[in-house]
């Protein structure tokens, strides 16, 4: 099956500032992609290009087989877009807004009512349909915004920070909704909250300063491993001993207990370093009660990748 979104060497300049730099990725049908990056990393710019709102400075972007520049209209028909902060017309009632959006998205006749009813039921909007948008809570505004994006059952759904400002119950509801779309629609989801992305996305892309660090953070192998060690003895002696071992990059204290300390050791992968650590500590008379590898979570991978990137930039 061919990708529903294909981005090749996308670059976007805002005057002299490069917001997106040479980004390439593809999204398969039914995938839920998380786009992770700090504020200002270029997530919203990529989304605006994918929806045809902005034109790329260079590179090509195809959505559902249509080029976003040449066939912007066709692209907009295939994409549902939920903007950050859910902008709505304050004077419009929810039902009016959804009908209006259904009409400008090209629905006609009875299809409008059917689409509005289905979206309202899906987002549980029935009790607010006759309220004006200005009177809605933050959570309902977000839900109305998602409802309008789902009206035409687009092939690609793009959500920019969909859970920002929501309470935990609303976050769970939105998360469940997005999960329910998996397999039917391709979803691109931007967030700067690691835990949020990790819980929803089937694949996570990391963006920093407009550059895509990885198109699949979970599959990215870190060059270093992290070991958790429980060691009794003086901290300075432990640090000196560990620092003398080749392959140990960094040592930090994670937790201090009565008789022992929990250390986190960044080291090169392989059994050699672990064996060396054990032998060295025992030889020094220090008591090692545990040495386990800590599985790198998304947060760690994010930190690794961004640190590596910063290191390269500094070099």
């Amino acid at each position: 099956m061919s990708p529903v979104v294909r981005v090749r060497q996308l670059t976007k300049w805002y005057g002299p500032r490069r917001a997106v730099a040479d980004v390439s990725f593809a999204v398969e049908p039914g995938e839920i992609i998380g786009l992770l990056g700090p504020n200002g990393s270029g997530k919203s710019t990529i989304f605006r290009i994918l929806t045809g709102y902005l034109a790329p400075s260079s590179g090509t972007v195809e959505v559902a087989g249509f080029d976003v520049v040449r066939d912007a209209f066709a692209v907009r028909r295939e994409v549902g877009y939920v903007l950050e902060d859910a902008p709505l017309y304050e004077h419009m009632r929810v039902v009016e807004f959804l009908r209006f959006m259904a009409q400008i998205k090209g629905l006609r006749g009875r299809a409008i009512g059917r689409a509005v009813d289905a979206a309202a039921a899906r987002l549980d909007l029935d009790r607010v349909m006759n309220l004006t948008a200005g009177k809605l809570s933050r959570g309902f505004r977000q839900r109305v915004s998602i409802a309008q994006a789902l009206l035409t059952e687009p092939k690609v759904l793009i959500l920019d920070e969909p859970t920002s400002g929501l309470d935990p119950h609303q976050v769970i509801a939105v998360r469940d909704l997005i999960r329910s779309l998996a397999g039917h629609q391709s979803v691109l989801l931007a967030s700067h909250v690691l835990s949020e992305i990790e819980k929803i996305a089937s694949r996570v892309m990391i963006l920093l300063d407009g550059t895509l660090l990885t198109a699949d953070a979970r599959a990215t192998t870190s060059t270093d491993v992290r070991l958790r060690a429980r060691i009794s003895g003086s901290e300075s002696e432990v640090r000196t001993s560990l620092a003398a071992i080749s392959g140990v990059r960094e040592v930090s204290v994670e937790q201090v207990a009565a008789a022992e300390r929990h250390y986190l050791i960044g080291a090169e992968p392989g059994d050699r370093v672990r064996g060396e650590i054990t032998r060295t500590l025992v030889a020094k008379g220090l008591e090692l009660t545990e040495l386990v590898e800590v599985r790198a979570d998304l947060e760690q991978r994010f930190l690794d990748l961004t640190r590596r990137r910063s290191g390269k930039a500094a070099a």
Partner: protein
Amino acid sequence: MTAFSVLLLKEEKALFSSPIAYAVMTVFLLLMSYSFTLTLFLSHQPSLVHIFFQMFVLFMLTVPLITMRLLAEERKLRTIEVLLTSPVTELDIVLAKFVASMSLIVILLMLSGSYAIVLAIYGDPDWGPIYSGYLGLLLLGAALVGVGLLASALTANQMIAALVSLSLFLLLWIIDSFGYLLPSPFDALAVNLSLSVHFKPFAVGSVYLSDVGFFLSVTLLTLFLSVRALARR
């Protein structure tokens, strides 16, 4: 329904659900009715020439109130991004806002038509200047709405949009007074940019193609520039 008609309906609802439209109509009718009555009793002439000049001034003062929110509000609320990521064009959006604003101008002109009816009942007015006056006001209204729409397209701040369009209107109103002080060919240029110079013939019953062309050109140019301003992002 086309995208344009859907957008037009939305704009009409927005315009006529806001108090601005009714405030403009009320102020307009109060001032014009007072002026019409006074002029009629003093001059005893079945003519609307004075009324047309006063409507000319009132249009310049009220059109910025009608147009200031059109695109500035959409930019500020970021609903413009909602529209422009849907299958509608910048031209659809600009035209819908223009036509909706023009509908209020037409309503104001129709309400002022009651003065012509009063003249017809109690006197024997010369209809030529009345027709040409209304044509002039319609063309003037279109040009002013175009300029106001452009000002609104260039900023996200409604007050700035209103101030810019009001300043432009006042400048174009009196520019011919300064124009005579300028050296050639700038004097002719300044005089020909004057709204009052192009409007006066309509009010007194003369319709020149050059005046029609001026107002139509301003309208089309400002609509084109508004579309460009919206497309530049």
